[in-house]
């Protein structure tokens, strides 16, 4: 036990130091963003600035819409795919696994180039072309999440039970599989949604104007405001994820308690 104590101090110290170095820029930007008009004092004016810009609502709702569609499309495409892969088409799993790693292998810029070269005219003229690419970009994360979620439930048994009781395939998926794998499914949805609303590269390279690209443009004029926005989005995302994580760990705890009682 003696060795552990000294390990605690040296490793912990190094970690603490790195943590401080890490926190500095974010806290600096927090301070920066709270600066008042003309650099005097501190207040929240910078946070309010973005809301007053022309086009705030229109661009925000566009991004939200695209993100939502990306999330839904991802589920519609991947939930049945992952399900059937688990049930009876397991030998294709390595292939699908590999395909889902590809978006990580292919730099987004290259994919953007490809999109320019290959997408048919009607699609290139519609902002919904972005939705499809958001889904592709999210594949590595969403497939992994869905896959591990489905692995953790007795999928075959549930499906056999449902089918033997007379349910059709769509009914089985919606009524049995979705509730059972709800954790993974909601994670997959949020991942693609988050990616959709935060994506910049493909959006700007394909000359579309969503919330992210719009904020970059607008920010050229107001550095303080843009920093406030970044800080705000960080905090918001962090708090949201923490809440989700704590809620889901609470749910797991309650389930464990229920099981132990019976």
């Amino acid at each position, binding site marked *: 036990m003696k060795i552990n104590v000294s390990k605690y101090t040296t490793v912990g110290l190094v970690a603490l130091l790195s943590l401080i170095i890490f926190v500095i820029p974010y806290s600096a930007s927090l301070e920066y963003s709270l600066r008042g008009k003309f650099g005097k004092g501190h207040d929240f004016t910078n946070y309010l600035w973005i809301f007053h810009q022309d086009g705030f609502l229109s661009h925000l709702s566009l991004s939200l819409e695209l993100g939502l569609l990306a999330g839904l499309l991802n589920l519609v495409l991947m939930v049945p795919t992952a399900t059937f892969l688990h049930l009876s088409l397991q030998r294709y799993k390595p292939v699908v696994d590999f395909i889902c*790693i590809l978006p990580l*292998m*292919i730099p987004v*810029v290259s994919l953007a*180039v490809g999109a320019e070269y290959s997408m048919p005219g009607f699609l290139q003229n519609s902002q919904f072309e972005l939705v499809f690419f958001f889904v592709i970009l999210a594949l590595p994360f969403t497939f992994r999440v869905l896959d591990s979620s489905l692995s953790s439930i007795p999928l075959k048994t549930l499906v056999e039970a449902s089918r033997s009781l007379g349910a059709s395939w769509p009914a089985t998926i919606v009524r049995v599989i979705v509730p059972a794998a709800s954790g993974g499914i909601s994670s997959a949805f949020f991942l693609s949604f988050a990616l959709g609303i935060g994506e910049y590269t493909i959006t700007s390279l394909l000359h579309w104007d969503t919330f992210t690209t719009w904020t970059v443009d607008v*920010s050229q004029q107001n550095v303080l405001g843009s920093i406030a926005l970044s800080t705000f989005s960080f905090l918001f995302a962090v708090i949201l994820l923490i809440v989700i994580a*704590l809620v889901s760990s609470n749910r797991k705890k309650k389930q464990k308690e229920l099981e132990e009682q019976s």
Partner: protein
Amino acid sequence: MSIQNTVPESAKTRELGTSRRQLRLPLPLLPFFLFVGFFLAWPISKVLIASFKDNNEKWTLSNYSPLFHGIYFHAFVTSIRIGLVTALLGAVIGGLFAYVIDAYAGPRLTSVLDSIAAVFANSGGVPLAFTFLASFGANAGLIKLLKSLGWDLYAEGFSIFSFIGICAVYTFFQAPLMVLVFKPALKGLRKEWKEANTSLGGSSWTYIRKIAIPILFPSFVGSFLLLFAGGFSAYATARALTVGNVPLIPLIIGDLINGNVISDKTHLGASLAIGAIVIAAFAMSGYIWAQRKSSQWRR
């Protein structure tokens, strides 16, 4: 396997004839393959073909020669260097964080820290760039503070719009990403191995040297390669941070399709894009190898 009878095979693939078992198409997977084929394979193959064609639509390798010298070569080298440096920094720092969290944090704290890491890992791009401008831009509080202490960084030629600046900024999403990607590997270290080592007479150092490091090595390398691919290909942050003074491949490709282009260079954009894919793919295949190796041990 009774499930084989109640599963789609019976509903949809029987039309193909059960005698042709070998060629049974996985019809339920068709939507997936079609989607990926159209939105991933098709664009990439188009780029590939375009990279081998010149302006007269004739087959040529001439688009690839600029990649090996001059500014484009320099850009590749710079991008690779940034990838390597930030991957190394991220891997070491992130690995350290991952170890500390795994060893000392309780379950609630761990999930909170995981969430924070997830946000920061995906924060590459515009928010991160802006944050850094805040901390290290000329008007930043930190800079002013240092100035008042007598250390005028900017006078000494410091700029965030530089190789070092980019490396520093990238590390801030590489390290959290490392935490996310590497921590599961740390969790895979079973406590029975440590205890067995103790009961057989080994010390903590023996355990680290002979067991922990060899077992963690593939995952570490794999994670490193993943970070490299990300650092090499990053676009948004670089765009926000540079004013053209640091040559990076993603930015050059972006410029070429953005229309800062003379038309005869569009094919060059294609070859650059393919070059980028080759490098990232190289790294990712190393990542896949590492995953395979480490999952073998986690049976």
